[in-house]
Structures are given as C-alpha cells and as structure tokens.
C-alpha cells in the first residue's frame, strides 16, 4: 500500500513536468507512425484479454488467436474452405468408412525439445472425448477410439461411417503436449497459464494482463519459417480505440472485424488496407417451433415475409453482406450451395394474408439478442420496424450476454436473433442445428424426414455423395422456415500498408491472424 502511494506520488510529480513539456522525447508508440516496418515486430489490436490458455477449453476470439499460434492443428483451411496440411500430411478413410488414418510430419518439436508425435494427437482427442468439453466433443460422437500406429501415424476407429470426422478433428482439435497436460488431474481444468510448452510458429514469452501478449518466432519451424520475429497482441477497450491506434501507427493490424460503418469510413485512408474475408457462418432469426402459434409453418412464413432483408444488408451492414437465398447452404459453401432456392421476399401483404390463413390475429412476439453484438443490435430494431408493417409486434429483448446464452440454452424465447460463427461442414453442422435434440437446435426442430436426410449426408464419405441429401435437407429447412437466414457477412479487417503477404482465410476466427497468414506476412518494401 505504502509503496503504491509513494510510487503514485512520484508519478504525479513527474507528470506535472511532463504536462508542461507535452512532447516527451523518446518512445512514441511502437514503430511510430512514419517509420517503415522492419520485420521485427507486428502488433495486433484485440478487444479482450486471453481468458484461458488451455487451447482445448478457451473459446473467446483472443484465446484462439493466441493459442492457435502456439498449438498446431492437424489441418488448416485455405481461402476456399478446403482442408490443407499442417501437422498432418495425408488423411483418408477406409473403404467401409469405419476407420480413418492420419499421417503426421516428423519435423515438429515442442518448445522443450520433445518431438510432436501421434501420442500427443491421441492424448488430445481422447481427453476431449473422455471429459466431454469444448466444441470438438460434439463433433466426434462417432469415434470409438484413437490409437498411435507409429510416431507419425494415428488410426481412428469409428462406430459408424462419418465423412465429417476428419474435417472436424483436423480443423478444430488443437494438439497439446501429452507430457505436460497429462500431469493435470483434469485436462479441462488445467489452466496452462505459465511455462508454456508449445509447438506452433510462435511461442508465448511474456504476458502483461490488460495490456499485451508477446510472442516470439520459433526457429526452425517445420511447416515454414515465419518472417516476423515477434507478434504482439495489444488489448483495447473497443474497436473505436483500436482504429485511433491504427491510424496513429501504434498497431499494425486490428484483429477484430470492423463494424461495417467503420469499414466504409476507413476504405479511403491511404495508410490503411482493408482485407475482406467471407464468413463461414450466417446471421439468422430462429422461431421457436415448440411455441404457439409458431408451430404453424404459415406463421413462420409470414414472419419470414416480414423482414426487409435488402435493407438490413444495405443499411445495417453497409452492403458488406451477401444474400444466402434464405438457405443454410450459403455462398461460402460453393460445393453445396443450391442455386434453385430463392430468398423470401419482403412482402407485408403476403405476410398478413398468411397470418389470416393461419387464423392468427394481433401477433405479438418477443425477440432475444445479445446487446453487445454491434451488428445485431443495429438490425434488431429494423426487424421490429419492418414487422410492424405486416401488423406483427416484435418486442426487443437486448440482453446481457450471459442472460442471452442462458435463455438460448433453455430455449426460452419466441424469436432468437443471432449468428453462427463457423459452419464449415454442412453435414456435421446441420446435424447439430436441426436434428431432433441437436445441441444447437435452438428452434427445437423435430422433423423425422429431415433427420433421415442429414444422417444420410453424414454417412457419405465424399462431398459429392453428401451433396444430394444435404441439399434436400436444406430445402426443407428453407420451406419450413426452420431457420431464417438473413445474410452472410463479408468481414473487413484493417491493417497498415506497411505490411503485405497476409493469407486471408474465411471466418472471423481465422481471417488474417491465422498461423499461416502470420507466418507469411512481411514488411512491404
């Protein structure tokens, strides 16, 4: 206490002198606004601290950005969403689809010198399966066991053919060092908050909570040596401050997606460059099909006709959004997209007519959303105002995030407004979202015909085989309005023109802060 006060006093006295001479010599922010980038350090702005360093648990964006640089995955995704090698070099299914094999590269090492082997992969996937936590647990229900055939080969035994398995495990599962994590009584509860043993392109060397996270290049790094020596994540309160700092030259890149209006504003700044990456998810409204009168498909269709989709995309998202034709197979999934479906038209008259047919009058519903989500907070009132034209009253319930999640989990809502971040694999994702009892089946859809089609799609071992049943399933979802897809956002990421060579990947999570991109980036000369 006393030392603190003395410190404060000293600081304040010195401050007075600083006040009289405003231009303090020396340090003027990282890099300074005019100096060219040297390749020594890339500073990334983020709006949150790392909450959990355990990559198997952490799920906030900042958590993932930092841990993705520390822990390898089996595969990565290219710009088109296709899986490409990372720790894994090849992967395949057996003929009957009940075994999957993955071959690993042999030149990756943990930062304590031990090699990264098949044992680490088996350990990670088995821990997740045993303790059932994180995203991956819901995606590997078909797995019976995983075993290391050799230090560079893993064999997964599946209980049923599942063509989504390798895509899911490869992309989502972070590989952690067995010899470190196995010492914890529970892998899920392992904080992993110091003395990190990592194997990604960068290692975390210093943490100043509330301020910054400093990561150093790993040399040598098998999959490809990064150019930049040091990556720093700096914490800001919101995008507004990040933009000021970027324009001031204090950071080189804003990790967070820019709000559409900010993107429109920064587009013409000659010192900045905007990179556009498509979303792998979509923004949507879901109608609780277990609540009257929304159990009636005509009412759901009436609601779908009472949304001004164009206005939401053009005004709330400033045009940085694509129509998905009201289909869950969005343009981000070119392999699956079905050109024959079309978007519900904004047509209040039709909406009224449908309600009349359903015998519903004075429809009044409430809509929940996360008030902290800037896009949704912006278009939620637009949904309300458009519905009013069709004689439907929608009461907004912009909730604090935890309350919102709670209500969502308990399915305690009439209309749910939200967005899904990554729906990278239609057969797997449709299963979670629309199959009876699915983990994120918020609309409480229970349609045997739909369930059957999705199962069929999941059993298929290739995309070609999965396409037909999945398209048919998506058509049912469209016609029954089990999901009302509003748009697929085009994310804008801003960086300083002092840097070049980023490798954009779809989704907010990967964008240009994915490991491949940060390994490839270099100073523009």
């Amino acid at each position, binding site marked *: 206490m006393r030392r603190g006060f003395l410190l404060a006093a000293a600081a304040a006295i010195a401050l007075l002198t600083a006040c009289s001479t405003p231009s303090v010599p020396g340090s003027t922010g990282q890099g300074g606004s005019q100096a060219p980038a040297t390749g020594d350090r890339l500073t990334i702005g983020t709006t949150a601290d790392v909450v959990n360093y355990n990559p198997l648990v952490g799920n906030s964006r900042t958590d993932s950005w930092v841990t993705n640089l520390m822990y390898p995955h089996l595969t990565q995704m290219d710009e088109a969403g296709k899986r490409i090698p990372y720790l894994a070099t090849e992967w395949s299914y057996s003929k009957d689809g009940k075994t999957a094999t993955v071959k690993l590269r042999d030149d990756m090492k943990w930062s304590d010198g031990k090699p990264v082997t098949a044992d680490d992969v088996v350990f990670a996937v088995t821990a997740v399966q045993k303790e059932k936590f994180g995203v991956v647990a819901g995606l590997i229900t078909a797995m019976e066991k995983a075993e290391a055939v050799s230090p560079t080969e893993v064999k997964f035994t599946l209980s049923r053919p599942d063509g989504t398995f390798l895509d899911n495990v490869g992309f989502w599962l972070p590989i952690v060092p067995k010899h470190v994590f196995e010492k914890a009584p529970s892998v899920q509860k392992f904080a992993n908050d110091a003395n990190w043993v990592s194997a990604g392109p960068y290692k975390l060397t210093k943490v100043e909570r509330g301020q910054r996270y400093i990561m150093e290049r790993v040399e040598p790094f098998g999959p490809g040596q990064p150019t930049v020596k040091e990556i720093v994540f700096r914490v800001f309160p*919101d*995008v*507004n401050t990040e*933009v*000021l700092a970027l324009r001031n030259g204090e950071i080189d890149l804003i990790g967070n997606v*820019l*709000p559409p*209006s*900010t993107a429109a*504003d920064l587009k013409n700044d000659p010192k900045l460059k905007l990179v556009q990456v498509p979303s792998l998810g979509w923004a949507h409204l879901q109608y609780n099909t277990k609540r009257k009168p929304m159990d009636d498909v005509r009412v759901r269709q009436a609601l779908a006709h009472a949304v001004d989709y164009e*206005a939401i995309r*053009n*005004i*709330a998202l*400033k045009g940085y959004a694509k129509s998905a034709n009201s289909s869950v197979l969005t343009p981000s999934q070119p392999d699956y997209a079905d050109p024959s479906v079309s978007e519900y038209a904004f047509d209040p008259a039709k909406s009224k007519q449908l309600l009349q047919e359903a015998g519903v009058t004075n429809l009044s519903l409430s809509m929940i959303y996360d*008030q*902290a989500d*800037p896009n949704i*907070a*912006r278009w*939620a*009132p*637009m949904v309300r*105002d458009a519905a009013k034209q069709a004689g439907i009253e929608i*009461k*907004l*319930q*912009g*909730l*604090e995030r935890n*309350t919102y999640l709670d209500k969502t989990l308990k399915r305690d809502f009439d209309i749910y407004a939200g967005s899904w971040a990554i729906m990278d694999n239609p057969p797997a994702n449709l299963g979670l979202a629309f199959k009876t009892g699915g983990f994120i089946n918020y609309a409480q859809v229970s349609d045997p015909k739909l369930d059957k089609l999705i199962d069929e799609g999941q059993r298929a071992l290739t995309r070609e085989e999965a396409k037909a049943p999945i398209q048919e399933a998506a058509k049912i979802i469209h016609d029954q309005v089990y999901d009302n897809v509003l748009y697929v956002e085009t994310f804008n990421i801003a960086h300083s023109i002092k840097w070049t060579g980023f490798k954009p990947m779809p989704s907010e999570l990967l964008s240009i802060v994915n490991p491949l991109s940060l390994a490839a980036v270099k100073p523009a000369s």
Partner: protein
Amino acid sequence: MTAVVTDLTPRQRTWTAFRRNPLGLASAAILLALAVIALCAPLIAPFPEGYGEDTFQPPSAEHWFGTDDIGQDVFAQVIWGTRVSMAVGLSASVLAIVIGLVVGICAAYFRRLDTPLGVLVDLSLSLPVLPLMILVAALAGPSVRTLVVVIALFSWPEVARVVRSSAMAIVPMPFVSAAKVIGGSAFWIVRKHLVPGVVPVVGVSVVLTTSRAVLAEAGLSFLGLGDPNSWSWGTILHKAQQSGALASAWWTTLFPSLAILLLVLSTTLLSVAYNDARNHRSAS
C-alpha cells in the same frame, strides 16, 4: 449590496437574492426548457425508429444534428433522449430522496436508531458505487425500471447524511420538546416540524441527486446496460460506440454529450445559486 428589507420572510429573502444571480436564473431557465422538451418530445420530433438511406450525414438544415449509422435523425434521438434521461434521473432521485429522508429523519429523531443508522449510512457510502451499479444492472437485465432502482439504491446514503445532520439541528429546538410534552405523536412531530425544516436541504439534494443519476444512467447505458427499447442520451452514445464511429461521425457523440453537460451543469449551478441565496453570509 443594498440593505435587505427586514420584513420579508426567509423564503422571500432567498428568492430576492436568487433573482440577482444571472447564472442561477439562466440555469433554472435551461432546466425548465429541458423539462418542456422532455414533456413535448412528440410535438418536436417524431420518435426515432425505422431506417433510411441517408446514413452518417453531417448536420444539415434537414437533419440538424446529422444522422446515425442506420440513417436515423440524431436530433430526434436527443429530443426523445431528454425524456428518458430526465425521467430516469428524476425518478431515481425521488426514490433515493424518499429512502434518504426516512432514514435521515429516523436517525435524527429516534436517538436509539442514530448509531446503527449512522453506521449503515457511513458503510453504504464506502461501497464502490459505479462498479456495483454495473454489476446489478448487468445481472438484473436492461430496462428503464432496473436503471431507476439501481441508481436509487446506491444514491440514498448521501441524502440520508445531509437530512440527518440538518434534522439533528432541529430536534433539540424548544418547539420540538414542547410538542413532545403536549403528547404529540412521533409521526405528527416529524411531519409538522422536522420535514418542513429539512425541505430546503432536500430541495438542493433533489437537484444534485438528479444530475448524478443522469450521469450514472449515461454511464450504464454507455457500457451497454441501458434499455434497448428506449432512447436515452447514454443509449445514443452507446450506439455510436457500437457503430465504431465515435471519432469520425463526431455529431453522433457531440450532441448527446452536450445535452448531458447542459443538464448536469445547470443543475449544479442552480443548486450553487440557491445555496448562495439562502446563505446570506456569503451573499453579503
């Protein structure tokens, strides 16, 4: 200063002194104007809703305060925001005053309650107010009612302290003892003697607590804990922040900020002027 006419009642004297203070008068006029705006909002501007193509337009003849990110008129938002901000401020303040008055007078009149209540007030004053407000507002869910209750809940101790000390000065007065002797009930004495005695202090308190409540409301709304269905000045700022345009579209932040400043400033000046007018030592 000219000699004060002696046959005026204290209230008249205060009023005469108050009228000589141009700042006080101006503040009163501004507050009155804000109150009129709040009451007549529907006559001044349509309720801000819907959306338009003219997004982020700077102030112009058509949109005096410019437009926001979905093309709504910021002027209309500020006008309707006056209503909510003042309503929240006033109701929170009234609620806080009622609690503070009861606690303060009880502490002054019933001597046995004085120590526990005094300690309670002191302890409550030592709680970190804003963080607690954030906590309660976040967990109780955003609505105008929540804001009012939360703000009042953490504002009453200040009032109670002021009321107590001024009531303490009245309790030993001969007319109170006299009332006790002739067997007046406690409630009657409090109503007849104590409440009128503390009214001037409470008057100042209402004004100051309201301005503090307006600031608190703005702070909570700014942090995203406001009511999404209504417009307050803090909500406008919050939406501007969410749109990422705090610095570029300066009109979306400047006008609500000015509105807050105007209200808080005029309430403070009004209370200063009123205190000056009442306190003749500093006036002469």
